[in-house]
């Protein structure tokens, strides 16, 4: 289609042979992107002037956060621990539940087409649902508090670990599995001894990585009343108590950094 509109350029080589050079599609892509950008800017009311004249407000807030309010540290500990507990519990339960779901979604292990399609659909549905939205729904069912947050994180972990795990299972070397089946093992035994050793490092590493991300997600879940440190952030910003917010963010950064370091260490060991 594109080649018909813009005919390829003909180049005659010194040997007399004629070759065709297709026209570049870059201008079309760039044009499309520019149109999309301008349309989005119109749609969202993007205005550079407003940004330039008012952006100092943003930095005023950041400067107000420094130095952080050390007095508020004592109030932060318990919600921070709640946040970590929520993400830990959600990650562990989610990672454990993800295993059977992922197995049910792997086309090379399970024979029933229906089960595969169903599990894959459930996994992608859960994955598209933003964590905050599932947390909100969970607060209606489980009441306000860390319970709702844990449920939301569990759901997200199932979808994330489940998807990556079934992709790994579908890519394993099926030779040992078939060999064990031919020796008379059941499919479950063959899965345990032929497939599990191949996917286990990847599975644990994905779960750890997911846990890292979950700490970050859990930090905002308090905003919808699902427990953890988010509630304090919201309160602090609402009352314009910026030093306290600065303290929370400072503590959060250190916590996330430490957890990332530890989990990175173990993930490197696994692979």
């Amino acid at each position, binding site marked *: 289609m594109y080649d018909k509109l813009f005919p390829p350029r003909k180049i005659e080589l010194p040997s007399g042979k004629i070759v065709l050079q297709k026209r570049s599609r870059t201008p079309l892509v760039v044009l499309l992107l520019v149109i*999309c*950008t301008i*349309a*989005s*800017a119109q*749609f*969202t*009311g*993007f*205005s550079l002037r*407003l*940004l330039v004249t*008012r*952006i100092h*407000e*943003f930095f005023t*807030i*950041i400067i107000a956060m420094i130095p952080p309010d050390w007095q508020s540290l004592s109030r932060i500990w318990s919600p921070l*621990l*709640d946040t*970590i*507990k*929520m993400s*830990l*519990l959600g990650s*562990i339960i989610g990672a454990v539940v993800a295993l059977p779901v992922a197995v049910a979604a792997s086309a090379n292990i399970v024979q029933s087409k229906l089960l595969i399609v169903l599990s894959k659909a459930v996994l*992608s*549905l859960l994955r*598209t*649902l*933003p964590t*905050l*939205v599932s947390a*909100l*729904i969970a607060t*209606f*069912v*489980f*009441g*306000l*508090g*860390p*319970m709702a947050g*844990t449920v939301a994180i569990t759901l997200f972990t199932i979808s994330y670990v489940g998807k990556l795990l079934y992709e790994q299972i579908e890519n394993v070397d099926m030779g040992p599995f078939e060999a064990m089946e031919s020796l008379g093992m059941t499919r479950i035994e063959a899965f345990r001894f032929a497939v599990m050793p191949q996917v286990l490092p990847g599975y644990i590493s994905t779960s750890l990585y997911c846990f890292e991300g979950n700490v*970050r997600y859990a*930090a*905002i879940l308090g*905003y*919808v009343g699902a*427990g953890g440190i*988010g509630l304090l*952030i*919201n309160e602090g*910003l609402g009352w314009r108590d910026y030093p306290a*917010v600065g303290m929370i*963010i400072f503590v*959060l*950064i250190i916590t*996330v*950094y430490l957890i990332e370091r530890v989990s990175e260490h173990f993930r490197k060991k696994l692979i």
Partner: protein
Amino acid sequence: MNTIEKQLGAAPRRSLYLGTIAVIVGALFIWSLTAVNFNQIEQNSLKIAKNIIYGLTHPDTELLFNVSKQSVLYLLLETVAIAFLGTVVGAVLAVPLAFLAASNIVPKPVSWLTRLVLIVIRTVPALVYGLMLIRVTGPGAFAGVLTVGITSIGMLAKLYVDAIEELDKRVLESMTSVGCSTFEKIRFGIVPQLLSTFLSVMIYRFDMNMREASILGLVSAGGIGAPLIFAMRSYKWDQVGSILIGLVVFILIIEFFSNKIRARLVKG
């Protein structure tokens, strides 16, 4: 004793190591159990859950398909616009930061400092940026664009850095040896190596930003989140159902196309 049994016996025994890890994980699990309590689940929780499921499966089709300013389609369009423009803003801002953080371009202290800044940017939750930026622009989609932009910087820059540090320097050396100018070296030596990775990362981030933008409405920074939370707070689960269905279908469609484009980019 045959060879197979010998081989089996030669396998390293790591039961102590594995046992320690199992005990630690178990202890952490029990420790984290103390955060949740089941007392809060009241008798009517089940009834509420039933209502929610009924509403989600019987969506408000009126809301889903009409074309007013409150309709799901319009809100989705706004969300996409926020995500798209936010990705563009973030992608542009991330490029200089990425070059400053690449240890093969700038001296060690500079790259270390930039990485620290990137970690800080990445850790602050999106909603916090949203709440702060609303003070700058006032509530609305514009605040959402800036929020998405800033939150994207962290991840984009990190992935850019990986691409920059893998630059093949031999290409540049051979270009120097045939007498290319600096501009030519950048245009034909560096840009082709980086562009496809950068684009692929941007498209991936756009995908994530769709999700990010759909919750920004919670802090009144535009997008589909605000009507969603209003519908929830007023227990109109059929409206929640139609919004969520629209959102999920839309995100899945975008994910499908972005995966297609990225696969083509990687193949070249």
